């Protein structure tokens, strides 16, 4: 849920996409590197019109095309199959290089989890993105501070995270990841005025909108019971 506002802002205010033509070569690319957030991604794709909203009921059911992690061969709108962490950024860098070679005006957005940044492959790709000055690339860190077992800073500390990205040749903007207006203004700023790839450190809260889930490690991968589910819906609806 920490990523929901980022997805909503991108899909309904930023990305140039046509659900009727999901493989249009000129489309903007969105890559969800933290592939475990399919709950949020599928809801967004369905709402955007990539597939019927009713299909969400099949999520992770036997033989559903809505796999627990995204699969582009089953689900229109998915760009690359993720699930193992540290895969989205290198792929996003590759798409951005293709756009750079072709002087295409599409943009590439990739969302990574913060704990995911412990994977070294991200930093391999970050070096190349900085080196090649991929101004068409925007990386968003869903900085909710938690990973599966504990806080990131109690596990393998990431801070000072902004300094790390700057040192790799990126511009960095820090933002409240639940503030739609702030996110929109960052994502829609003309990329041709930049000289470096952009890293948006979006400060977010796990379980945003649900008081008993918010920022709780135990809810990283928790499943609510019926009473918790109803209470959560009630709180989000408020």
């Amino acid at each position, binding site marked *: 849920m920490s990523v929901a506002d980022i997805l909503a802002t991108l899909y309904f205010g930023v990305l140039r996409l046509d659900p009727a033509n999901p493989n249009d*070569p000129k489309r903007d*690319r969105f890559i969800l590197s933290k592939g475990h957030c399919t709950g949020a991604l599928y809801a967004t794709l369905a709402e955007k019109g990539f597939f019927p909203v009713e299909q969400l009921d099949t999520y992770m059911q036997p033989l559903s095309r809505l796999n627990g992690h995204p*699969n*582009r*061969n089953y689900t229109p709108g998915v*760009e*690359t*199959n*993720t*699930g*193992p962490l*540290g*895969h989205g*950024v*290198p*792929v*996003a*860098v*590759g*798409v*951005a*290089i*293709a*756009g750079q*070679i*072709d002087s*295409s005006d599409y943009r590439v957005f990739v969302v990574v989890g913060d704990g995911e940044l412990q994977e*070294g*492959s991200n930093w*391999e*790709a970050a*070096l*190349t993105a900085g080196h090649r000055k991929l101004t068409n690339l925007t990386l968003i860190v869903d900085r909710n501070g938690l990973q599966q077992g504990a806080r990131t800073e109690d596990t393998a500390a990431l801070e000072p995270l902004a300094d790390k990205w700057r040192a790799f040749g990126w511009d960095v903007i820090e933002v409240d990841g639940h503030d739609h207006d702030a996110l929109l203004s960052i994502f829609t700023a003309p990329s041709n005025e930049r000289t470096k790839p952009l890293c948006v450190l979006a400060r977010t809260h796990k379980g945003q909108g649900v008081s008993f889930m918010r920022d709780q490690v135990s809810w990283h991968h928790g499943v609510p019971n019926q009473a918790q589910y109803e209470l959560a819906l009630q709180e989000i609806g408020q």
Partner: protein
Amino acid sequence: MSGETKVAGHFDCREVFAKTIEALAEQDERIVAVVNDSVGSSKLVGFQKRFPNRLINVGIAEQAMVGVGAGLANGGKVPFVSGASCFLTARALEQIKADVAYTNTNVKLCGMSSGIAYGELGPTHHSIEDFGWLRLLPNLTIIAPSDRWETEEAIKAAAAIEGPFFLRISRMPVPDFVRPAGAVFRVGAAEILKQGHNAAIIANGVMVSRALEAADQLLASGVDVRVINMASIAPLDVEAIRSAAETGAIVTAEEHSVRGGLGGAVAEVVATSCPCRLRILGFPGFLPTGSPEFLLERHGLTASGIAAAVRETLEARKAA
């Protein structure tokens, strides 16, 4: 035909690899090369000079190299992702699985200096496990060309066919084979280089020339063996294996571990559908240091080693 060669001498297939990619890139602007600081060892200096903005060097970073390749394919490019096979396939195995095979992207992985080309550098630099771990991945076509012609044809096929490929390119010099006029390379089709009915040798890559030589030696002593070039490990020509099994004895030869590679693939077919005598020639595990020739000799991966294995297999069959 026998082990006759077209042009005297032995040739490093990396040269024709680079020349072919350059020629294809001239005609098709989607073709790009992705390397891990391996411009020289992949012989891509010429490519870089001709197409400087289509050579993407990510540095010594194999995971990024494969992921970037998958991204380039998403952006409409046809990337030839080229690096030493030991690092490309082992270091980036999860990227090959998820970003290339599972996502089913149009990425052409080129494992250079494969097998024991870096013999003296030891097991970290040997790539004698790559068939094994790549053969498990659905969607991935795996080709180990045997000479210059086949290397060129395999690269052209990889460029023409949509989908993930792994091309295993050796740096060990090999001769050119004489092929019938109009010979065509087909992905997934075994090539019968010599007919024979007493036994069959199934080989690929640098072992094919040795297999042909072994067949000549055997013929001189009255043993007539079939020689099958199984360049394509995936998809596998199951019919050619079943037909070879009808001779009653198969010997496989590969520049790879005896586990999980060509021999393993043949064994799966033989054991489940056409039982016959089978001997798998390859390497037993981590190898000591030594030149490629020394290591091949030590493990019986020579013409006389293959011929001896065929004789032993036929004798065992007779004794049984």
